[in-house]
């Protein structure tokens, strides 16, 4: 099997303090983002800590390959996701055995249009409840929704991180949002925040 060509050494080695300064400026500032995404992927704080730690180490080691000033956030999230798939998914969560395309989400707006078109019931749902609902989404929907709706990444950026076409990001995001809305709506009905339509 042919070996991949060796990476050419940088023309001038970067001094260590300069490397550290640029890493702090461009990479470490995304620690909160990496942690939030790691937490939603692994589902528990201890694994999220380890995953972020490992991502930072890998990123620092590979820092010379990163083209400064481009998109460190996306670059690091890609590293994080690879590390998650290779080392954590196996022992934390299992990849879906259900066919996510067969999940039929329903639109919530028509349900609440008459009673609460402004969606005031959302305001009564607390952080933990929203995060719990996100954690129940199938992984492919969860990761897409978190990158987009929590971390504000573009379809193009998400497509790059997840290594899927932009059209896939779009359709997953659509379904993820509908599914999540459905879960939150069901919860709101259950809690009496909204009357809901009798089944």
């Amino acid at each position, binding site marked *: 099997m042919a070996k991949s060509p060796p990476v050419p050494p940088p023309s001038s080695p970067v001094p260590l303090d300069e490397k550290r300064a640029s890493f702090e400026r461009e990479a470490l500032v995304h620690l909160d983002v990496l*942690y939030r995404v790691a937490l939603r992927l692994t589902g528990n704080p201890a694994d999220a800590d380890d995953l*972020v730690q490992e991502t930072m180490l890998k990123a620092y080691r590979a820092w010379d390959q990163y083209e400064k000033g481009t998109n460190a956030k996306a670059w690091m999230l890609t590293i994080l996701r690879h590390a998650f798939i290779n080392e954590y998914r196996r022992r934390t969560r299992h990849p879906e055995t259900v066919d996510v395309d067969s999940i039929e989400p329903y639109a919530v707006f028509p349900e609440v249009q008459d009673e609460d078109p402004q969606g005031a019931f959302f305001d009564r749902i607390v952080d933990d409840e929203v995060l719990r609902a996100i954690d129940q989404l199938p992984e492919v929907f969860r990761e897409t929704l978190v990158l987009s709706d*929590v971390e504000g990444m573009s379809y193009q950026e998400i497509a790059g991180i997840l290594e899927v076409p932009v059209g896939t990001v779009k359709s997953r995001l659509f379904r993820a949002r509908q599914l999540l809305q459905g879960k939150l709506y069901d919860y709101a009905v259950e809690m009496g925040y909204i009357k809901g339509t009798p089944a």
Partner: protein
Amino acid sequence: MNCRECVEHLYEFLDRELTPELEQEIRAHLEDCPPCEEQYDFEELFLKFLRARCRTQGAPAELKKRVLRELFGE
């Protein structure tokens, strides 16, 4: 642009992921169509709500220390 098409593109519109032409068509439709505008407001509110609820948490201070220690030996 009819209501079905408008609703189909609503998320892309909210995400600012449409071409300027399509974006303009949606905007025009929303101005003329109260039900679609109502749904637009609802979806916009949902996305703002989601972001607000999920961004309160950051990395624990202990993790930051651990990362710095590991990377730079501090």
